[in-house]
């Protein structure tokens, strides 16, 4: 499954651990939420970055005490019709000011890229190679956005206000 990071296909330095996989001595690891909470001290002490895979039915606020210490939060789309992780993503970025990597995992197709970018995701485990390759092109599909989100894109309402004011100058 290709990883798109920073807008292009990239190598994934993280190894996903199951609940019971032995912890490697070094290297970057992504661990399930329950293991992360259970072994947090051990995990943060070792060499290598730590990320957490957070399920979409668990309160994201639980993660707040650790946000400064983790490199990746991976949110899950079990099917692409299940949109709970969009809310989790916006909460992480906009309420809890998480600035690390926010990764979309699960059923990730090109048709969600714009929504995901707007919700604050910046890396994507894409299901299909062709979708991963089409990332940059797809991400630019839209130039107009009606809602304000934490991604900072200017909304249609505010663009109109700017146009109004600039038209107002000199009249």
């Amino acid at each position, binding site marked *: 499954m290709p990883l798109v990071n920073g807008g292009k296909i990239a190598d994934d330095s993280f190894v996903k651990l199951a609940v019971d996989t032995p912890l490697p001595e070094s290297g970057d690891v992504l661990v399930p939420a329950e293991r992360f909470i259970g072994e947090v001290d051990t995990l943060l002490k070792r060499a290598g970055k730590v990320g957490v895979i957070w399920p979409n039915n668990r309160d994201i606020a639980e993660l707040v005490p650790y946000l400064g210490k983790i490199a990746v939060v991976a949110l899950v789309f079990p099917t692409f*019709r299940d*949109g709970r992780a969009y809310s989790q993503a*916006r909460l992480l970025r906009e309420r809890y000011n998480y600035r690390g990597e926010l990764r979309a995992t699960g059923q990730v197709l090109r*048709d969600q890229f714009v929504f995901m970018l707007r919700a604050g995701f910046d890396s994507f485990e894409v299901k299909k190679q062709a979708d991963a390759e089409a990332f940059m092109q797809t991400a630019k599909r*839209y130039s*107009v956005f*009606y809602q304000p989100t934490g991604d900072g894109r200017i909304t*249609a309402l505010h663009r109109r*206000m700017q146009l109004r004011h600039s038209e107002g100058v000199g009249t």
Partner: protein
Amino acid sequence: MYAYDEIDRTLVNERVSEFRDQVKRRLSGELTEDEFKILRLQNGVYLQLHAYMFRVAIPYGTLASNQLRALAHVARKYDRGYGHFTTRQNIQFNWIKLAELPDALADLAEVGIHAMQTSGNNMRNVTSDQWAGVAPGEIEDPRIWSELIRQHTTLHPEFSFLPRKFKIAITASDHDRAAIKIHDIGLRLIKNEKGETGFEVLVGGGLGRTPFIAKTIKHFVHGRDILSYIEAILRVYNQYGRRDNIYKARIKILVHELGIEKFSREVEEEWQHIRNSSLQIDDEVIEDIRSRFTYPAYEKLPHNPDELRQAAADPDFEAWRKNSVAPHKNPGYSIVTISLKPIGAPPGDATAEQMDALADLADKYSFGEIRVGHEQNLALPHVAKRDLPGLWKALDKLGLATPNVNLITDIIACPGLDYCSLANARSIPIAQELTRRFANHELANLIGRLHINISGCINACGHHHVGHIGILGVEKNGEEVYQITIGGRADESAALGNLIGPGVKFDEVADVVEDIVEAYLALRERPEELFMDTVKRLGVEPFKERVYATR
């Protein structure tokens, strides 16, 4: 009318090109049907019994004449020459070809019409009073706010994959023509003591398998806070709404399971986090949207012109005028409802020729504007009273002057088993038979206001729960069986109907309805007592006794 600016046009065009790419990927096999299904639903495309069905949004029920012509064009070029107006200010085309859909959408985009989010588990077309902006006594035009919410809910990055569909309706009149109490969110525009605009917010209404009337979650939310408040409701719903069972996934079930108090506390807590954010709406933003709604330059005209007095001699004209013409906020003008319920025809259908002709009549008599109501009728919102006789003659020629608005033959019905892959029973033939039984205008007038709503399955697209007489078709041992309720209503006093007795067969439905009506005529205290008032006064029992005595 709201006029799209370059920003709105760009978005709709970007959506069309995205969908064109999605259809191409589906046709090439790059997308599976399962993956494509959600994408097409987000663009109003269903797979029905015989073909794809295409649902186009008519936001808050307002159409310009060139937009109606574009709908006629789609009916003619891509479909079989007609369209079906639905109960949620949409129009459906039943015979569309997948490969041609992107072109149909592109043609509609040229006149600022789209099909975004007319199906799928997202925020659907925002609906409102079809008399918005012209009804006497209205607090203010609810379409300004409807448009604001339409924009905010379009391609929302957080709420495009909700547990289930989500419908918002807005009214600004005492008499609720938008059926806000059967919506996921109902907004009643009100003013506070300071004269500021805000909303009573209702939540958790809906029909379907488990019907609920919406409950008030907050008595007053200031206009500037309405987007953040809606966002708070949706965020709670997106996270906690059930996703394990499609029949329990609507917000009404979450509200019911948590209780309105607990649900409203959750919303309140979320709202406090976001209300002072960029979601807050400046007056300037509202004014900008308001400035792109244009209003007719009304003339000062007599409220009882000679033309009207002379035409009064014609009983057919008078019958139509008394039935279909309603007061306008400007006394020289009227609101004219156009019945799409001719005797013997499917409710809500209009041919391409009728749509084109109506667009011409709108240009001639109604400042180029047409409205669509949830009762599946159309309206011309600004007709000068002196023009009523001329308009009537023209409508009559088109078969659009049936004087049955709000009468027993003004039936709401879903497409049913004739088109729909979800249906268990036929709806349209029941409606057709009922219109024939009550075709006599004197009889229908004698009965007075009476709404019959028919659904061909438990999903309740025909709003049977809130029909004064509700008819629900189900399947039992391979046969169509119809359950009949009385006493429902969808207005400001919304209520769910009560079952009158055991289900009856297809052939018996019209007889039972006739018996109910006969019982009503016998039971009413005086001619002015409407059907729903008699049912309210007496309950179901006396009706049940009379209807089932001989069965």
